[in-house]
């Protein structure tokens, strides 16, 4: 490597007219160019979070049908799927090229001058290479990775999983030995008596009254505290915007995986006193508010999907599946998985993902194969090591002061 670096063609040819390649690499390795690329990526990210993306576009059009023309224009410009658009991938590739060229050039220069990179330069080399590793890991994930689900009941064995409606074989079998759920103990949970299937219970803080609203997308109710006259100050306008029976986050967006009530979620808007608050409410996780702003409007909401049995009134604390892997019909591995503790075998990882409140023996698993993860994690480690070297082990202090 050292010898290579010392007689690179660019060095021997440099004194003569510069080749196009040399000029391109010089631009790629320059800090202003890199800064512009990074700034462009940052701006693309801003666009990607401010404009509706992917499935959000459909939701947006339902709310604003008159903006159809605008949306198709944005779609044409590739702005409604920024993070998978070719131009965005192109920007990332430019960043990767810039990182690669500047790392190589710096490395070669250090070898020429000192025979080895000096300590600080070494830190910055590691920093930049780490980001290349992360980007490479991302490429591997997109090209060779797979992700899907499988659902089964206690005692059943699966040999395939589902990736976007198509069945994909596993190179081994997996059996669900046992499935259990644990519940939080919450003191003072009110018992709800309604027989209705799906209800949203709303209580204004410090009020006795609980309104139980049948769940329907688009339904809107104006609730006024007892003894108060309806006014902006006393009235809470509650609107059910979306209902997802099987809530998952897919590509950063909330969607429903199926019509089964596996993880029912409601997107609810509350307007009170000129403040609007939109939040997700989960039937299975009453304590989990995805919106910090929910605290600004003093209402409490609970979403129930059945006349609650004594146990399922409590929020679910954890759910666990005991799994067995059968390779050539021999049990090679057994593990009890939970939400944060998956099972991995032969590059496949099984994550606990859902359960069905009406079928306590059934569970769904997320199946992921991502051969890029080791690269990405190595990159993460290098990044932390590199930055620590640059900032703290060999800091700039000396020539700064």
């Amino acid at each position, binding site marked *: 490597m050292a010898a290579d670096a010392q007689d690179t063609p660019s060095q021997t040819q440099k004194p003569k007219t510069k080749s196009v390649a040399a000029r391109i690499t010089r631009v790629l390795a320059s800090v202003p160019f890199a800064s512009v690329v990074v700034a462009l*990526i*940052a701006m693309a*990210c801003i666009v990607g979070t401010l404009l509706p993306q992917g499935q959000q576009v459909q939701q947006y059009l339902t709310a604003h049908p008159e903006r159809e023309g605008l949306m198709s224009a944005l779609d044409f410009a590739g702005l409604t799927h920024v993070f998978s658009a070719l131009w965005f991938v192109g920007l990332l590739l430019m960043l990767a090229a810039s990182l690669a060229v500047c790392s190589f050039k710096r490395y070669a220069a250090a070898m020429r001058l000192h025979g080895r990179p000096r300590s600080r330069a070494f830190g910055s080399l590691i920093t930049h290479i780490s980001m290349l590793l992360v980007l490479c890991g991302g490429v591997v994930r997109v090209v060779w990775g797979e992700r899907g689900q499988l659902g089964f009941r206690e005692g059943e064995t699966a040999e395939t999983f589902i990736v976007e409606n198509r069945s994909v074989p596993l190179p081994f079998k997996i059996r669900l030995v046992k499935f259990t759920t644990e519940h939080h103990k919450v003191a003072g949970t009110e018992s709800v008596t309604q027989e209705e299937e799906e209800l949203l219970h709303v209580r204004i803080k410090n009020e006795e009254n609980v309104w139980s609203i049948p769940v329907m997308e688009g339904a809107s109710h104006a609730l006024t505290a007892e003894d108060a006259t309806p006014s902006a100050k006393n009235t809470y306008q509650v609107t059910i915007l979306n209902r997802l029976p099987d809530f998952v986050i897919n590509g950063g967006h909330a969607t429903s995986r199926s019509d089964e009530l596996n993880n029912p979620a409601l997107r609810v808007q509350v307007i009170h006193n000129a403040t609007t608050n939109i939040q997700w409410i989960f039937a299975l996780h009453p304590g989990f508010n995805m919106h910090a702003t929910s*605290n600004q409007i003093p209402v409490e909401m609970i979403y129930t999907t059945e006349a609650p049995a004594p146990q399922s009134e409590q929020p679910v604390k954890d759910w666990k599946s005991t799994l067995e892997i059968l390779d050539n019909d021999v049990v090679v591995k057994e593990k009890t998985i939970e939400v944060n503790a998956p099972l991995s075998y032969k590059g496949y990882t099984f994550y606990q993902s859902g359960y069905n409140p009406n079928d306590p023996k059934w569970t769904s698993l997320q199946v992921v194969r991502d051969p890029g993860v080791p690269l990405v994690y190595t990159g993460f480690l290098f990044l932390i090591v590199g930055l620590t070297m640059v900032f703290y082990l060999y800091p700039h202090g000396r020539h700064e002061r």
Partner: protein
Amino acid sequence: MMTTLFNLCFAIYLLALVTAAIALFAWRKPLSWVSIGALSAGALLQTVYIGMRWVEAGRAPFSNMFESLVLFAWALAVVYLVVRARINIPALSTATCLMVLLVMAYASAFESDIKPLMPALQSNWLSVHVFTCFLGYSGFAISFLSAIGFLVIARANSKCPDETKNNIDMVTAKTISFGFLFLTVGIITGAVWANSAWGTYWSWDPKETWSLITWFVYAIFLHCRYMRGWHGRRAAWIAIFGFCCVLFTYFGVSRWLPGLHSYA
């Protein structure tokens, strides 16, 4: 009991602010030591508060707006004490105390009940993630204050000696380096957590994306400063812009951009 402790912390931080302000405007040097003592005592007491809440909840108390603001105030005080151990800039002390106090006041506007967590949030990676992010944010917050300080004294150019300016400029750069390292660790532990909870280390959710944008802005700062020699005003403006991105990531995303992540 917990509320009393919270209010006591608030009162001590208020004392730190008042004494720092008097030390700054009336040039009472000993008072600056009182102020630092109060800030340290406040931070210590707040450590106890966080520890008690941890025990009571049976998990790291970093999971909603109230808890994250308390953590932010604590990290701000602690990181500033480290800066203060190296360099004393009275105006920066005052500004930091004011900020700590504002964050505490804002925290008290949120509900402080301890609530159970959904399964995906019960993870040590998540606690490390939130903790390191907030250490990073406090570094950036102090760099923001010192950048504003720099712009103020650079405008009132007459009296201020160059050494003071250079010192403030250096505080901006050093706290950004610190913040950058911890934001990096924060983003990474968040990615590792997401991968262990649902098998994706990155899904371009608005909060993730905005933390990446913030990270890019500070990466540009580091390159401009160390490779192109940007100091003084230009560096200060990037530091201010960077902190605006932090604020948007922290508050703005939860408020205006829907997504999974809005709990902290």
